[in-house]
């Protein structure tokens, strides 16, 4: 029978051996991810895929998204003034790329068509080695690309998408949305409409006949009927109708005293312009001033409606006039780079790029299941919308929502929207289960 003896030298050797043994599995596991997921960066750089509308009706919005992504790339790589890296509550990003790898990017053109957007995302993943896809200016595109990214195991950080379905019935484990949604627009706008227009109103909806329009109409109807408003009618208009006169004239003798335009982009510009031409802003119905409401405002597109947006109420995700430190830092960086202020689409895209990079840093890996874990339930601040939560249950961001109206006295060509109220996050938070859907698995995929 041997005796167990422990010398000082033996103790040191055993300690060193134990240290090596403990450290070895960690480095082994980190290395193991390399074999297990699509487009694991192996060189000194990491490639992000910016999928934005470079042609088609939303090309100007897409161009602004691309500017924001290029600025985010600069800031992530330590160039420029650092932008929101200086105000972001998470301090994981150091301006040395992502996990020490220089950030590079490739771009795709969604054309604001689901099939084209999927094709360009697929090309960036399969041919260009993009580890993450981000961008877009349409809910149809977001849902389509999100589905593809789930299939391919590549994280998708959505751009401008406002339909409830993106993080509702079509939510995906690999998809994340920073932008607010139609339901939140209703929650934010309802009380302001009650304050500004009263509780005894009759609304008439004109709604773009596609997924986003339907969800917005439903959300705003829920909110206004909850206030006690009546709904005179809700009429679906073809996307890109151009001339809305035949849909506007029935409003005039419908008994409605509020027209709600569930339109976006060119449709919003045309329907609003024509509604004003039909004298709806001077009209009196039921003893009240007739009002027009545009639940989703985009400053970039509101330019197309010119003077007609003055005094019109709506909501927006973010506006460059905000005075919090994050917004000021972003406006300064963007304005100095390009000579004009960023749009809400630019802000959401910039933030999404940084949030992905930050999640990789905090996870210590590009391995998607770990990055997803880092994003799920992540609380942050300093990005321009107050304290924000990336809710784990549906991958929807919860943050402040802005109720705005068309500026009556703009000080510049960019000063189109006036913030009426910053609606706190608590007021636009809802139960994730109301929209159903299933996030699906987080399993890594090879490509």
């Amino acid at each position, binding site marked *: 029978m041997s005796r167990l003896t422990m010398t000082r030298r033996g103790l040191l050797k055993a300690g060193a051996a134990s240290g090596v043994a403990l450290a070895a599995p960690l480095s082994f596991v980190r290395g193991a991810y390399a074999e297990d997921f699509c487009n694991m960066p192996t060189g000194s750089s990491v490639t992000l895929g910016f999928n934005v509308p470079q042609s088609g009706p939303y090309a100007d919005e897409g161009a602004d998204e691309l500017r924001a992504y290029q600025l985010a790339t600069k800031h992530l790589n330590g160039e420029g003034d650092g932008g929101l890296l200086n105000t972001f509550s998470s301090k994981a990003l150091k301006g040395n790329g992502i996990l020490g790898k220089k950030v590079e990017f490739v771009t795709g053109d969604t054309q604001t068509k689901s099939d084209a957007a999927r094709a360009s995302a697929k090309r960036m993943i399969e041919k260009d080695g993009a580890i993450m896809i981000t961008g877009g200016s349409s809910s149809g595109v977001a849902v389509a690309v999100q589905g593809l990214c789930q299939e391919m195991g590549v994280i998708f950080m959505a751009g401008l998408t406002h339909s409830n379905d993106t993080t509702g019935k079509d939510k995906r484990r690999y998809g994340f949305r920073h932008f607010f949604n139609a339901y939140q627009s209703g929650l934010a706008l309802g009380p302001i409409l009650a304050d500004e227009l009263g509780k005894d109103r009759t609304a008439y909806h004109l709604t773009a006949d596609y997924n986003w329009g339907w969800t917005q109409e439903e959300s705003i109807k829920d909110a206004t009927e909850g206030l006690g408003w009546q709904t005179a009618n809700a009429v679906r208009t073809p996307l890109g109708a151009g001339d809305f006169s035949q849909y506007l004239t029935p409003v005039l003798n419908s008994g409605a005293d509020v027209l709600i335009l569930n339109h976006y982009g060119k449709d919003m510009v045309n329907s609003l312009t024509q509604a004003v031409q039909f004298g709806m802003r001077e009209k009196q119905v039921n003893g009240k001033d007739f009002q027009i409401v545009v639940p989703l405002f985009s400053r970039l597109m509101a330019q197309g409606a010119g003077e007609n947006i003055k005094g019109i109420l709506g909501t927006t995700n973010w506006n460059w006039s905000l005075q919090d430190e994050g917004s000021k830092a972003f406006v300064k960086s963007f304005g*100095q780079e390009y000579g004009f202020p960023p749009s809400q689409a630019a802000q959401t895209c910039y933030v999404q790029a940084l949030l992905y990079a930050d999640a990789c840093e905090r996870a210590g890996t590009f391995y998607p299941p770990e990055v997803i874990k880092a994003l799920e339930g992540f609380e942050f601040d300093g990005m321009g919308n107050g304290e924000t939560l990336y809710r784990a249950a549906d991958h929807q961001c919860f943050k402040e929502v802005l109720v705005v109206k068309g500026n009556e006295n703009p000080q510049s060509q960019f000063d189109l929207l006036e913030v009426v109220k910053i609606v706190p996050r608590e007021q636009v938070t809802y139960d994730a289960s109301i929209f159903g859907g299933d996030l699906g698995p987080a399993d890594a995929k090879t490509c």
Partner: protein
Amino acid sequence: MDAIFLQLLNGLDKGGAYALIALGLTLVFGTLGVVNFAHGALFMLGAFCAVTFNKLLSLEKVVVDETQQTAWGTPLEVRTPYIESWFGEFGSFLLNYSVPVSILIAIPVMLLIGIVMERGLIKHFYKRPHADQILVTFGLAIVLQEVIKHYFGANPIPQAAPAAVAGSADIGAWLGLGDGLVYPWWRLVYFGFSAFVIAAVFAFLQFTTYGMVVRAGMRDSETVGLLGINIQKRFTVVFGIAAVVAGLAGVMYTPILPPDYHMGMDFLVLSFVVVVVGGMGSLPGAVLAGFLLGILQSFASMNAVMSIFPGINQIIIYLVAVVILLTMPRGLLGREGVMEE
């Protein structure tokens, strides 16, 4: 009753635009035998004549004010339109009336564009099959669209109607139909304008010698050629006139529909339906079908109609086209022998 009357006005207004575009398309088809898919782009180019003129008038003198800063920390630029600082009230008047005044610019510009388009490209496709003509003119339309998008962006650019006709007319009071029946002044102006242009084109073709030769050429160009008349030269001018008609329709439409690079395509398909329903090569047919389809489209969008036939507003034009072509294969006023060989 009010609702029906308003929809009738909407239909006449919309029909005016369809008729103007279809008139040009028919002129080109009737004279040159070319199916011109770039015709919608001419409508769009006309609208951008108004945009360009307005932008020229709005050129601004920029003074950097070092005492004020933008939100991004650069000195504030104070901008004043040159035209107002140079010409005072007359400058403001020109800016206010930039849309109707730009008609004067659009006429020579569109005539030139039409002639260059015909001489530079389309004449090489006269003897080619219609499919080739469609492909080349459609390609040309896309090129023109992309050029406009490059210089003006993709977003619509608002053009205001002159202040005097920016609001609504109280037509209820005019017609004794009661108060509150209003209709936008500019749409009434547009309807009157389209009726004037259509009448002018018909008068030109009907009452001038030039027009008589063109009409004769549309019937039988070979015989007209044998009389020693250079009919091709006249047809080139007709192509230019068609471009002017489409361009003017575009100029005057800008306060109704803020123009963007794609607006021509939005009208093109409908205008072809109008031409086919009216009868290929028939000018009165194009005008008649333009107004007819415009009115039908408006009535189909009435809530009472849509509650019985959901979605009818989106298919009515095509439905009517199918019915007319089944019962009258040459269209409403089509001639025998056109596109029938």
